[in-house]
């Protein structure tokens, strides 16, 4: 069985030194065969929750234009606490 989505976000991010949110979103949509703005926003909210909980940290941010709109993007990294929680929660078992 696949990991639940928030678990996947953590594990996938932990495979790299750091990732931009649009890279994480692309990997997640691909993993769960999803598409559309609803799921993109849903994943962004999940990343915000993970950052608020201290499991991931924001290393960098930038504004990009998409469809005439300014979009804020973040580069994330799993924090030491996040790595502990990945082990605690058995996400890599």
């Amino acid at each position, binding site marked *: *069985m*696949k*990991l*639940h*989505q*928030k*678990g996947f976000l*953590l594990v996938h991010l932990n495979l790299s030194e750091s990732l931009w*949110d*649009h890279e994480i*979103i*692309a990997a997640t*949509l691909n993993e769960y065969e*999803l*598409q559309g703005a*609803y*799921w*993109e926003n849903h994943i962004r909210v*999940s990343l*915000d*929750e*993970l*950052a*608020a*909980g*201290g*499991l991931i940290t924001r290393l960098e*941010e*930038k*504004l*990009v*234009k*998409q469809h005439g709109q*300014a*979009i*804020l*993007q973040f580069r994330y990294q799993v*924090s*030491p*606490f996040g790595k*502990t*929680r990945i082990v*605690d*929660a*058995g*996400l890599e*078992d």
Partner: protein
Amino acid sequence: MVTPTSSPSAPKELTTALAQHFARNQRWGFVWALWTAILWGAWYVPGTALWFEHPFADIPADAQALRLAATAVMTWVHAIAVFVFLMLWNGVLGKVKDYGRTIVRFKKISKWYALASLCGGPMAIFGSYMAMGFVGPVFAAVTSLFYPVIGAMVARLWYHEKISGRAAIGMAVIIFGGIVIYGPGLFGEVGKEANPMAWLGYLGGAMSAIGWGTEGAVAARAMDVSDPDVGIQCRFTFEIFFWGLIILPILALFTDLPILTLIKDTILEPQAMIWIFLAASCHAYCYTSWYKSFSLIGVARGEAIGNLYAIFALIFIAAFTLQFPQWYFIVGLILTVSGSFIMFSEPAASIEHLRDHSSSEKRA
């Protein structure tokens, strides 16, 4: 999929966008917490009306054991109805598969939702009914108001949730406002007569504050690695299990209480079921909002704003029964709303990191 299509913008625009981003998260966190309070307050109307329907209306006020058994039956049927509404919610949001993926990870994740359901279900609800039955309903309401203090303490000590001075002051003002609303009624209840069983009521009051306070902190422990919408459905799955497969069968097998008759009479009574479904619709989305607020603004703030239910309960009861609250309700209203604004006036950046993990490697 989002892909960058232009070069990064100027630093000033970036700073503004960041401030807006955190302000939006803070606003959504408080909006969810406010919905918790509104729906919790609304729940009191069908939740109270249910006691006036068969089979619950037929139970004498002094038949404490039977009333507690009826509460257990009512809570179980109510939890099943809540589960139905949550399934509908997650079905619409496309999260049912994620619910399955989360609940099967019992040993490491969903066990925390099971523990949260024990704290918020049997412990808090039973405690609240004990407080109502052995001391009085006002005492039960006042003790419940202290649950954010317990939640904040547990969250602070267990996983180092950050609670700013302003958040703590706001929380204290909200709780004081709640005491002003219900407190004067306490003089008519506490110590009014020498009730040898009153200690059970005081114990129940403590159980309700500790149960609900701890529930938020325990659930937030699992929610840092799982989705709040899914988490609340896991929590109610376990509550159905605890009441339906452990507590009610034990009561049916080892006591003379008419558990099966109560279940049958409840399910076959259309009026009772209408109230249960109305109460469950409020409760399902009240709890969903509560859990969602924890992820965005933390357990302490989410529970404190949720405490505004004290205001909304009286407003809804006045709207449906035309029983208007006492004058001091206005004082309590001013205090609780002021406390909410004190909390909301925190800088939005303060909710960017809800926990202090400066030495996180040492903690589990």
